């Protein structure tokens, strides 16, 4: 299982949960698993070309994820952040 940290912008999808567990061998797999349980969540984080949206950040542990095809290992922690600036 992979632990996933959910930002405030997405807790409306997770019933308020800020930490959930998911299955997946890749970040994409984790997002698919989350989307199956929390419909709509994935599309708000990545676009239809599987690119991470401009003001979203995904980290695997301390490492920033640039490609959701990146592999995960058992026990990894995936952190999703909203990173918006401006008024």
């Amino acid at each position, binding site marked *: 299982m992979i632990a996933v940290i959910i930002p405030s912008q997405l807790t409306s999808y997770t019933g308020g949960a800020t930490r959930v567990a998911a299955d997946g061998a890749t970040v994409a797999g984790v997002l698919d698993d989350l989307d199956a349980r929390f419909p709509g969540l994935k*599309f708000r984080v990545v*676009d*239809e*070309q599987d690119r991470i949206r401009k003001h*979203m950040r995904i980290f695997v542990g301390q490492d920033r994820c640039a490609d959701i095809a990146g592999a995960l290992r058992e026990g990894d922690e995936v952190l999703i952040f909203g*990173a*918006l600036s401006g008024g």
Partner: protein
Amino acid sequence: MSNAIQLLVGTRKGAWIYRSDDQRRHWRVQGPIFLGHIVNHLVSDPRDGRTLLMAAKTGHLGPTIFRSTDDGETWTEAARPPAFPKSEGDRGRAVDHTFWLSPGHASEPGVWWAGASPPGLFVSEDGGATWDSVAGFNDHPMYWKWCPEDGGTPDGALLNQILIDPRDARHMYLATSTGGVFESHDRAQTWAPLNKNVEASFYPDPFPEYGQDAHFIALSPPQPDRIYQQNHCGIYRLDRPSDTWDRIGKAMPPEIGDIGFTIVPHPRDADTAWVFPMDGAEVWPRTSPGGRPAVYKTRDAGTSWTRQDRGFPREQAWFTVKRQAFCADAAAPVGLYLGATNGELWMSEDEGDSWREIAAHLPEIYSVVAAPIP
């Protein structure tokens, strides 16, 4: 007969609904709805009088569509929002935001059309729950000519409007910020430019076949063969079957000009329409000309224009009105409504002769839609 109206207001920071009494004198407010979301369009379905669809995103999150059937109290998100097909190449397009929502033809309940940025046409056949890319436009062989990647408005190039001929569900028009106006006779399967005599002053050939910036187009309700257009380069009228636009904005006062975002046709008189000019001089401030907001009205299909500014500030008012934020109801006399970039909501209950403020201090207003209260 009741003239009670609801105003569906989309802003940069959420949506609000204002509902009037029978005389349109007093208004009560519902909202904010989805505070913090960028709401480009909030539209009611005239076919059932109760469904609301909202095009929304936030600064962080991807774009989506919300639907309500209980007057905006609760909302359901689209299971599959508008999105381009997955692409293997580098040119894979992704919807940044849905900009425009059109209920389908009266004979097609449940059908909705959406326009997006980057320019994209999408259709839903199930009331807005799932959306499909319309290949007839999005995959047209001319798409990248009509919608070049470096084109567009500050918030991104737009397919900013979809109009459906009320007499024929297969006959459609759309407007873009990069290619101008296009027409389809086969329910969006094929499209052709419709821009003859419309200026694009930012090209070496100022009257190209396509490449214009069609800020807003509107069919005259009593005469759907008449199309009014507020373009980046002036105000136009087209009477079909002609395909050559007439620049009716030439009759505007020269000190005001004919630049603006939007145009509103009268619901019963094909010769009457209103515009809200903005300053398009030199560096394009896009403010009320001279800091003195005014609507201009034509009653002769654009041969002449009359200034209507009673009730607006007389000086030092620099707001403007974006393309989806000026509309009319169908009452008699017609009510006009405009939402300003400074968050003020204005109305006229006498066809533009006088104006009064309904609300202030809202976020920047992106869209205002007037609909009867069901």
